[in-house]
């Protein structure tokens, strides 16, 4: 298993560097002197020179790219144009916020999605089932950041049930931390929740028709054992697959949610970097995001071994 995992990981590493290559190519292809373009609206000569220096713009694009890859492999992601911090410092400082947000969103998605799917399955074909299905199919079209705005407007600004904006580190206590994450977490988790609901409901529907579930019934097991033990584990496989894909989008969605809720996370960092054309920070952000996605996919693959023993052997 470990050998399998590490082989998968090694195979994924080249993948991480394709997107940055694209960024380098775009910088090269962009009209005008990239350094001047990147320096923003009113470039000072010093800044243009600094950018030229930082990006090695005097060297050919492939050389620049190779140097960047070399630096990354040595653990050096460069220094921000905007501040004197290294990119690694900047990212690690802001990572906790985003990871907390993504975590809360995913937990919300799984708990709500699984509950709705189970309730719908137990009431198969009934009004509840159809309602849950309809709700989830509609929820899938709701733009998450708009939902975030609505939640903030209604529950934070209107009803004042939750703090509207900002973030408290976990170190300041669990409840302050959580209370700042409830609304953004729900907003971010809505889409994956709807997808978990639909996927799990349909997978459970399939599994409940299987011979082994009929056999479980024939053994006189309790209803809960039939549903929770014999159906759920097998129905989880497609759900885990979808969740794996979804993590990437949740991570991307955190950018807008962090802007709405004024949270000092990676997304906000990225937007600040875009506004300041802070390419090293952006490259770092892209690299980080892709790494997370690759790792999550790896975890998904490994989890198949738990859900489907056939994979193990």
């Amino acid at each position, binding site marked *: 298993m470990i050998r399998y995992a590490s082989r998968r990981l090694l195979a994924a590493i080249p*993948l991480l560097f394709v997107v940055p290559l694209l960024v380098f190519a775009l910088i090269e292809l962009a009209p005008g002197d990239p350094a001047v373009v990147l320096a923003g609206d009113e470039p000072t000569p010093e800044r243009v020179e600094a950018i030229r220096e930082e990006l090695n713009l005097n060297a050919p694009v492939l050389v620049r790219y190779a140097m960047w890859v070399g630096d990354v492999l040595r653990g050096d992601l460069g220094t921000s144009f905007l501040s004197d911090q290294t990119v690694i410092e900047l990212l690690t400082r802001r990572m906790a916020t985003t990871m907390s947000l993504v975590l809360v969103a995913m937990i919300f998605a799984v708990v709500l999605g699984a509950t709705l799917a189970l309730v719908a399955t137990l009431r198969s074909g009934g009004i509840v089932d159809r309602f849950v299905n309809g709700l989830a199919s509609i929820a899938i079209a709701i733009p998450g950041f708009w939902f975030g705005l609505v939640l903030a407007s209604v529950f934070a600004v209107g009803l004042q049930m939750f703090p509207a904006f900002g973030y408290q580190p976990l170190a300041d206590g669990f409840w302050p931390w959580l209370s700042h994450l409830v609304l953004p977490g729900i907003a971010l988790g809505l889409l994956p929740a709807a997808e978990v609901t639909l996927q799990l409901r349909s997978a459970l529907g399939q599994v409940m028709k299987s011979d082994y579930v009929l056999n479980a019934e024939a053994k006189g097991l309790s209803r809960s054992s039939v549903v929770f033990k014999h159906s759920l584990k097998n129905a989880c496989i497609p759900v885990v697959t979808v969740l794996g894909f*979804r993590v990437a989008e949740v991570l991307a969605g955190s950018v807008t949610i962090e802007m709405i809720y004024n949270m000092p996370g990676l997304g906000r960092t990225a937007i600040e970097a875009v506004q300041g054309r802070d390419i090293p920070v952006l490259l770092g952000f892209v690299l980080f995001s892709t790494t997370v996605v690759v790792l999550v996919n790896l975890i998904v693959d490994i989890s198949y071994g738990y859900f489907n023993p056939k994979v193990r052997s």
Partner: protein
Amino acid sequence: MSANQTPSAPAPGNDSGLAEVPAAAIGTGEPEPVAAPGILKSIVRRPATIAAGVFLLVLTFIAIFAPALAPYDPDVQNLLLRLRPPNAEHWLGTDDYGRDVLSRLIFGARVSLWAALQAAAVALVLGLPLGMIAGYRGGWVDAILTRIMDALMSAPSLVLAITIVAVLGAGITNAMLAIGLVMAPRFFRVARAGTMDVRHETYIEASIALGCSTLRIAVRHVLPNVLPPIILVISVSLGTAVAAEASLSFLGLGVQAPAASWGSMLSTASSNMRLAPYLVWPPGVMIFLAVLAFTYVGDGVRRALVRTRSGN
């Protein structure tokens, strides 16, 4: 699964669900190209698809005739009438510069739909030919192109789009270029799969033997097989693009002031949430409905494809 993603653009996950269905269906199906009229007839049988289609037509109509339909000039400021809630003169109220929200919503439809079309066109122009080349040539060309597209799909789409905008500079055209680039792999995969299906069919081998040019074979024999699933990807991508444009414009990376798009209107709503909570609703509902409509049309196309396939 579908065209919407939170604030995000195309998802790898999305694709593997929707875009691959027709590709797979094609794989098991007959080599003959699907007749378009059959698909249309099949779509027409589904009321949800029709409703969605009608909604999109109306939206297009509104976008085209926005200047005639909008009660006010969307960009004219009236600082005396700032942040007025909905009333008789301004049905949806006014924003922080005293601009009429309804008029901006109507003109926003123009921006949003046009942007979505641009993005889908970019994705189509990039993905379709590259996919057909990869599927037709195979070998190392296929290997390299597929690797690149897979890598594009594995990065979170909005993150990628943001990065591209950062390099190219903010603005609606650049933003749509970015979204189009990010969506291109969907088209690539479907085109590649469709091409590989027919690559070794007798009628194509025969055309090669007859000395037809590759371009001619591609257009006459391969394209008809690739096109039906591509239609599905287009409708799904338009929904994705509407949502993605809204996200980018919300972040200030898309449409630039004073022009209105639904996303930039939500940005206004976000900064005036305390004083004018009513601003949150109109643009959001429009984005939601548009995405939902594209999803339903896509779903109708998908069902029609499956049915036409199984009907053969």
